[in-house]
């Protein structure tokens, strides 16, 4: 149906092309998954299909895009709207109107659909996506998963034959992501809509994909793609979900793509592996908890967001905070930071009430990296940002501080050019810069609000390593052990980094304890490796390590 022929794209003449000689065709009713490391051109490729590149990005586009055999490369996006529906990375930023119903009708109004037809299609779409009860809701009050579904609905009403989605599940909690993906598969099955989607969290999407297109797979041919069956491509893909890594480690061929497949083949592997690794609790000797909350309640805008939270954070541990969108994770972080005061209960950070402390004091006790790290940055270069952080630390400590922030940054993410504008950094680098700035005040407690958004597997591994180091105090010779709390939706990331886990729902902690125990209690939060091998196993690294021990470094079973 849609065919890309020898597509090439570069931002300026002479620059390394982002895309080169890309050939790709998508048939009716097919779900095509685009995968690849960050910055490899997935969004660009989606934009080329939708007609937004190069109009909104600049750059030079070569090659041809065919829709049913006729070239549409010169058609602007608005003229393609009736056949191609595009849902961007953050649908919240795309909403034009302010209620769900009007938003669904907007696209049809543009195409001049008759009012009676519009009325009918809006109702059909509301039902199809299961959002009928939201019809009069203000779009700004929707949760992430609801926004994503409204965003999909808003393009579906024009009955496009191809749906293009950029990271539809990356900001969603596991359950909301399941909802959105279920919706997409339903569209593919029932309506025969073709879907092209880019996603970082492959573990969520791979089971649903018919074919896959991997970008940046071949270091010898930058900008090229490989297209094929997911099971074949994932053998060598630079990005792979944990399930595939497990399959690779175990030498399974063909690779299992669903947890069910893998479970059936896991029996011999389990025999080889033996009992799961013992998990020793992190050392608690002589360590006073850094944060203690007892029945803490927080009220915001006269609504109780937290109602009775009990938690303890100790230095040297990484604690993961999970829970659906809007459960109160951010509020809890801001309460520990001290900006929000507890309306009931008792909250002690380093023995004192954080809300009573002056902002300067708060910074030296608790470092918080907000959901959008760019909110912290306002200067023109990384160097200036670091200097500002040093100056502030010097003021707080009363002794000159020089190069501390830059050294931290170098330790976290090496080789950032200090003259780079913070906006030009990748997501992971920008996050590291924010962490470095916050840590320059030397807080003993570090809170991170959803740091894994938009990070690929490599960046997430790096972040996990960084957090482990920071918790252990390994970043500086004289660094103390720190308590780290990280809010995230990414169960795989949690499995790789956290010692303990808290699940927040409706303003209360509903589950807490060591990661393996919490996962055993709530299967929704289980990482893929646990789903396959049982709750004792959390991460592929544990499996590979054990295999290496057992097989004397040969690797692979069967």
């Amino acid at each position, binding site marked *: 149906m849609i065919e890309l022929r020898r597509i090439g794209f570069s931002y300026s003449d002479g620059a390394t092309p982002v895309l080169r000689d890309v050939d790709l065709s998508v048939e009716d009713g097919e779900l095509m998954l685009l995968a690849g490391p960050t910055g490899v051109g997935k969004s660009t490729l989606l934009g080329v299909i939708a007609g937004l590149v190069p109009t909104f990005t600049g750059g030079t586009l070569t090659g041809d895009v065919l829709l049913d055999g006729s070239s549409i490369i010169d058609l602007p996006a608005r003229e393609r709207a009736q056949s191609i529906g595009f849902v961007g990375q953050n649908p919240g930023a795309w909403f*034009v109107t302010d209620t769900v119903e009007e938003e669904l009708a907007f696209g049809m109004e*543009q195409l001049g659909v008759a009012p009676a037809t519009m009325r009918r299609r809006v109702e059909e779409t509301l039902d199809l996506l299961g959002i009928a009860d939201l019809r009069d809701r203000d779009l700004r009050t929707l949760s992430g998963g609801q926004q994503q579904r409204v965003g999909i609905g808003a393009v579906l009403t024009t009955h496009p034959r191809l749906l293009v989605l950029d990271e539809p599940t990356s900001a969603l909690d596991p359950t909301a992501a399941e909802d959105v993906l279920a919706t997409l598969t339903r569209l593919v099955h029932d309506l025969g809509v073709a879907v092209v989607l880019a996603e970082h969290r492959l573990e969520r999407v791979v089971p649903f994909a018919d074919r896959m297109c991997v970008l940046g797979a071949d270091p010898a041919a930058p900008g090229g793609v490989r297209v094929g069956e997911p099971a074949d491509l994932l053998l060598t893909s630079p990005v792979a979900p944990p399930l595939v890594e497990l399959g690779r480690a175990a030498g399974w061929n063909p690779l299992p793509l669903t947890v069910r497949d893998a479970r059936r083949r896991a029996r011999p592997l389990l025999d080889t592996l033996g009992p799961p690794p013992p998990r020793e609790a992190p050392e608690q000797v002589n360590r006073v908890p850094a944060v203690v909350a007892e029945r803490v309640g927080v009220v915001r*805008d006269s609504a109780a967001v937290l109602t009775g939270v009990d938690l303890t954070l100790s230095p040297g541990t990484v604690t993961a905070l999970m829970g659906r969108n809007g459960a109160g994770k951010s509020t809890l972080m801001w309460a520990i930071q001290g900006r929000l005061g507890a309306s009931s209960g008792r909250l002690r950070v380093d023995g004192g009430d954080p809300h009573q402390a002056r902002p300067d004091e708060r910074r030296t006790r608790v470092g918080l990296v907000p959901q959008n790290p760019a909110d912290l940055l306002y200067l023109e270069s990384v160097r200036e940002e670091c200097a500002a952080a040093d100056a502030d630390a010097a003021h707080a400590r009363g002794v000159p501080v020089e190069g501390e922030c830059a050294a931290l940054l170098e330790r976290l993410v090496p080789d950032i050019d200090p003259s780079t504008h913070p906006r030009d950094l990748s997501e992971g680098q920008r996050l590291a810069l924010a962490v470095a700035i916050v840590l320059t005040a030397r807080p003993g407690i570090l809170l991170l609000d959803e740091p894994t958004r938009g990070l690929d597997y490599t960046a997430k591994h790096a972040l996990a390593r960084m957090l482990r180091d920071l918790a252990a105090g390994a970043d500086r010779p004289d660094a103390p052990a720190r308590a780290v709390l990280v809010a995230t939706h990414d169960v795989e990331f949690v499995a790789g980094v956290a010692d303990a886990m808290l699940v927040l729902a409706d303003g209360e902690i509903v589950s807490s304890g060591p990661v393996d125990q919490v996962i055993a209690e709530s299967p929704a939060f289980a990482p893929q490796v646990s789903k396959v091998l049982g709750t004792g196993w959390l991460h592929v690294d544990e499996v590979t390590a054990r295999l290496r021990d057992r097989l004397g470094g040969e690797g692979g079973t069967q």
Partner: protein
Amino acid sequence: MRVPRELHPVAWWVWAIGLAVVASITTNPILLGLLLGVATLVVLTCRGDQPWSRSFRLYVWIGVLTIVIRIVFRVLLGGDVPGHLLFDLPSIPLPAWAAGISLFGPFTREELVAAFYEGLRLATVLICIGAANALANPKRLMKSLPPALYEIGTTMVVAITIVPQLVDSARRVRAAQQLRGAERGRLGRLRGLRRILVPVLEDAFERALALAAGMDARGYGRAGPATRNQRRLTGALMLGGLCGICTGVYAVLDQTAPRLLAGPMLAAGCAAAVLGFVSAGRRVGRTRYRAARWAWPEYAVAASGLVAAVTCWIALADQPAMAHPGVIGLPSVTLAAVVGVLVGVLPVWVAPPPLTTANRRGAGPRADARLDPKPTERPTVRQKARTP
């Protein structure tokens, strides 16, 4: 039972303009006071709970300010209305080049009353407009623009939506900036402003670009099926209409211009402009979802404003003493004028009850400004988590 719904915004504007016309043709404080009462009563009973509904109070304050300013200027510039002296300020004559105006001087009770009457007239006109602003949904008003103006209307709607987003974004950034040190030194405060502004503006630009891309991807601004000739015809009609209206307005105001250029030219210009709009609207391939329809309450509300204006116009036309009462005695009114003004109170009974959060079907919580960009989700009973 009357079902709560939003009245067509144009109906509210017609009603309000009717009242404003009445206010503009009289300085009679009794009539103006009645008008104020009518407008306030209707606003208080018919407004909903949306943000724009709260703007009425602002207009009342602006009205009060208008009267005060009017009186202050009368005191400042002095006057020559004889009568009961209130206070006497030393007069400061200005030099001849200032046209011999003198500042201050004696101020009489009659002068105060005259200033109050004039100020009250202006204030009433303002408050009538404020009533329309509080009652009519501005977004629906934009959507009621003729098809030819559709794109301008959408742009305005988007612009209205941006403001609350900016507020949210500023709040978020302010909170985030507390996480690093404050600026110090002499320019600290100034730089402190910059650290809020830079991220907020960057955020706003990114949003704007995303929105533009989103609107484009959904077909906004598609070229209609018009041919080149049709487009030329539309352009010619619009331009011709504009020229005609300009000439006509000039001739109406300038009594020495030939009369043929006045009324007839204005009419011809308007006609050409309307034709241009119709022609432009016809080539727009857009439709409207659930377009606001005119039902009898709309007609009744609009009519009440028009009837008030026409009745008062007729009642006041040959009664200059009632329209602009003197400052010596008490002003008088006739029954016809009072009834005319009171017709404006009709919407209290005919307009449907306003939509509020409480009676909106299946409505969720209103937008509560939260720190994080993700809005709240009311806790719902979710199904047991599924696993793939």
